[in-house]
């Protein structure tokens, strides 16, 4: 009797076990010809105008077509949905000629109204800001021309439009599907969404109606591998074909591997140290200079960044308009640094802390901490979560920040305007120089390139004297791939258009 009860209990448990397993069936992927690209995280959704997650934007790059796209290496803007474009004299009006015969993934024809609708939708969405922040009006002219009006001249506008936050959606699908659109989008992009397992993988197949011809790689899988070291192992094992953002500690290993290839390129972003000028002792320029002299950029780049980046002395690369080498430079010199500190005559010993949130910055800050200790400044490292970091930064509640940034286009305005211009949203360290403000504002409305370059030069030189922030290295983007995968070049945003990739025969 009680034995039967016991058996029943065992059965009950077995049943519970089995239900747990049947909740989700394990499905296999078709490995043949499927390109598997891994990323560090998953996307929240598939809505181009409502997704500024890194991984989401990577996915939307192949799911959606923007009006224009950017070349990975030359940064040249080339046509996509827009066949050609023209800019008005004052730089505030853009006319785009829309390509004919483009079909959505559901087979319907794309009309000008869809493009206009997409632009308007983007303008309304707070998350599509990177593309539409400056757009004030979008309208269709005739049957194939789109006119976008900006609030002022904005030379980087085409780069903004090339971002995956400015994809073209089907007006009808958006209106019919409502909220479901973000899970089941209708797009014109080279690939179509097949399946999504949250937190694990997204499957795509080539869009047969793609207006530039069907993609050479028919099936693509985006896999989530949060640990970059694990991703490298998977790459070596051949479980995945590509990984975006390989950790520098694995560069050697990948370069040695006979089956893998590492593609690197400079990105739109740099690593810097920001000093809170509203606080003592950083209100003293001598102290800021002393700190700049105490940073051994070479040691940082080769010792802890494993050579991933390029040492810079200013906030622009030589290819950028307005780059100058005449900026004030602060070579690594502890004696000089110490001397400056003595000169600054710091009265009281204040508690100084370095605020940061990433592992990379943690390493940087440890080296910085040691260097500052050498010149007699004791600092504490305060690593926090990203949200807490942003919070403290906005409130100006920090002494030193170690951080990196990313921006949309390769120009000086993009790289520093919002950070150093008085009153701008990301200017959190209390820096304010009316001259710099004036030059930056003037550059924005200056259409002539030479005049703009002059203004930027002045800004960069002034910044190197004021030292509100100290540039360390220019960041690099990378993607490691299977050697058989061709057509791969590093994209400065790390948004890869798989349409360009093909398998070696």
């Amino acid at each position: 009797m009680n034995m039967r009860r016991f058996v029943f209990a065992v059965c009950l448990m077995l049943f519970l076990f089995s239900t747990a397993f049947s909740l989700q069936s394990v499905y296999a992927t078709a490995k043949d010809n499927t390109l598997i690209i891994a990323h560090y995280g998953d996307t929240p959704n598939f809505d181009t105008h409502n997704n500024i997650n890194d991984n989401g934007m990577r996915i939307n790059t192949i799911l959606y077509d923007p009006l224009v796209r950017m070349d990975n290496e030359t940064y040249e803007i080339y046509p996509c949905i827009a066949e050609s474009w023209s800019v008005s004299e004052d730089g505030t009006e853009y006319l785009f000629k829309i390509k004919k015969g483009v079909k959505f993934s559901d087979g319907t024809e794309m009309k000008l109204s869809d493009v206009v609708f997409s632009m308007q939708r983007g303008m309304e969405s707070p998350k599509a800001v990177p593309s539409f922040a400056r757009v004030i009006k979008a309208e269709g002219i005739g049957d194939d021309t789109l006119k976008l009006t900006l609030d002022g001249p904005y030379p980087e506008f085409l780069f903004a439009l090339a971002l995956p936050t400015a994809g073209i959606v089907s007006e009808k699908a958006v209106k019919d599907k409502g909220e479901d659109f973000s899970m089941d989008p209708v797009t014109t992009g080279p690939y179509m969404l097949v399946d999504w397992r949250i937190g694990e993988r997204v499957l795509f197949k080539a869009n047969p109606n793609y207006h530039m011809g069907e993609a050479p790689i028919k099936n693509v899988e985006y896999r989530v591998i949060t640990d970059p070291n694990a991703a490298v192992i998977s790459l070596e094992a051949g479980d995945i074909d590509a990984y975006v953002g390989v950790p520098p500690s694995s560069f050697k290993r990948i370069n040695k591997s006979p089956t893998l290839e590492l593609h690197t390129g400079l990105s739109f972003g740099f690593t810097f140290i920001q000093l809170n000028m509203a606080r003592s002792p950083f209100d003293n320029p001598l102290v800021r200079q002393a700190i700049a002299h105490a940073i051994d950029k070479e040691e940082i780049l080769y010792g802890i960044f494993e050579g991933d980046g390029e040492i810079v002395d200013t906030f622009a690369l030589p290819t950028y308009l307005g780059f100058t080498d005449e900026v004030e430079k602060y070579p690594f010199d502890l004696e000089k640094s110490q001397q400056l500190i003595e000169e600054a005559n710091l009265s009281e010993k204040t508690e100084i802390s370095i605020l940061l949130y990433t592992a990379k910055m943690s390493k940087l800050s440890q080296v910085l901490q040691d260097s500052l200790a050498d010149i007699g400044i004791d600092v504490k490292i305060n690593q926090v979560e990203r949200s807490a970091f942003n919070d403290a930064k906005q409130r100006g509640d920090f002494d030193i920040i170690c951080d990196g940034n990313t921006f949309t286009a390769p120009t000086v305005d993009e790289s520093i305007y919002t950070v150093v211009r008085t009153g701008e949203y990301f200017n959190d360290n209390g820096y304010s120089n009316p001259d710099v403000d004036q030059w930056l504002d003037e550059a924005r409305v200056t259409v002539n390139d030479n005049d703009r370059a002059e203004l930027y030069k002045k800004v960069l030189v002034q910044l190197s004297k004021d030292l509100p922030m100290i540039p360390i290295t220019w960041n690099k983007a990378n993607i490691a791939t299977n050697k058989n995968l061709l057509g791969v070049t590093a994209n400065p945003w790390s948004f890869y258009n798989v349409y360009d990739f093909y398998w070696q025969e």
Partner: protein
Amino acid sequence: MSKKLYDGLESKEINRIKKKSQVQFVLSHLFKNRLAVAGILFLSIMIISSIAIGFLVDYKVIVKHDLRNKLLGVSARYWFGTDGFGRNLFYRIIYGARISLMIGFVSVAGSTVLGGTIGSIAGYYGGKLDIIIMRFIDIQMAIPSTLFAICIVSVLGTGITNLLLAIMIADIPQFALIFRSSVMSVKNSEFVEAARSNGCSTYRIIFRHILPNCMGPIIVQATLNLGGVILTAASLSFIGLGVMPPTPEWGVILTEGQEYMRDFPTLVIFPGLAIMLTVLACNFIGDGLRDALDPKLK
């Protein structure tokens, strides 16, 4: 008879004799347990060497980077090799014992005192107060303690003190429960009745009569928890929510080493071994104490 024996002795004296003999009894049992002795030895060595290293080596050497010497293998100069910053791994691990053990001892002591107070109050007064306290404990027990500690750390921020606080708070219910049940079982015993009828104050009853009589299970639990706390602290540091680098905490050393794990597994193996052996030592001692305090459980 006993009256005659103790005649002329102050009652304090009697207590002292009684206590001493009890302690001696427990200790003699404890020292018969080979594993417990091994645990005590290991822990003593750890404590002594971690204190000694503070005198022998400058803290700056322990935390300062030396990138020319990074990722060296085991050698006479670097017994455990060097880490990704070129720091001496051996020094860091030995110094790490300070931090881990400090977190362990302080947080266990804290949760024992706090949990003890709450549990004793609940157990002694009973009634509605007990019910209310128990509900709170139920609630906290239903939240996994790691999760609870993570939540607290993310509010307070990282760092040794906050980590310590978080673990301490997360451990309170366990101790409260033990204290409560011990107090409840002792509360109604005859000698407490006797003390009460002699007009002892509540305070005196709790501290002089009840608590000394339920010390056994509490000491055991505290020792066993010591290991658990060291583990939790390391875990939290490991997922980046505990002590911050470059402080040589074991979990931190492990996380830093994880990056190089493939080519330099020793960077992961040594700090892990340090954690494991220390926790093992605590558990051996705890087990030994339990057997010594309550031989019938063996």
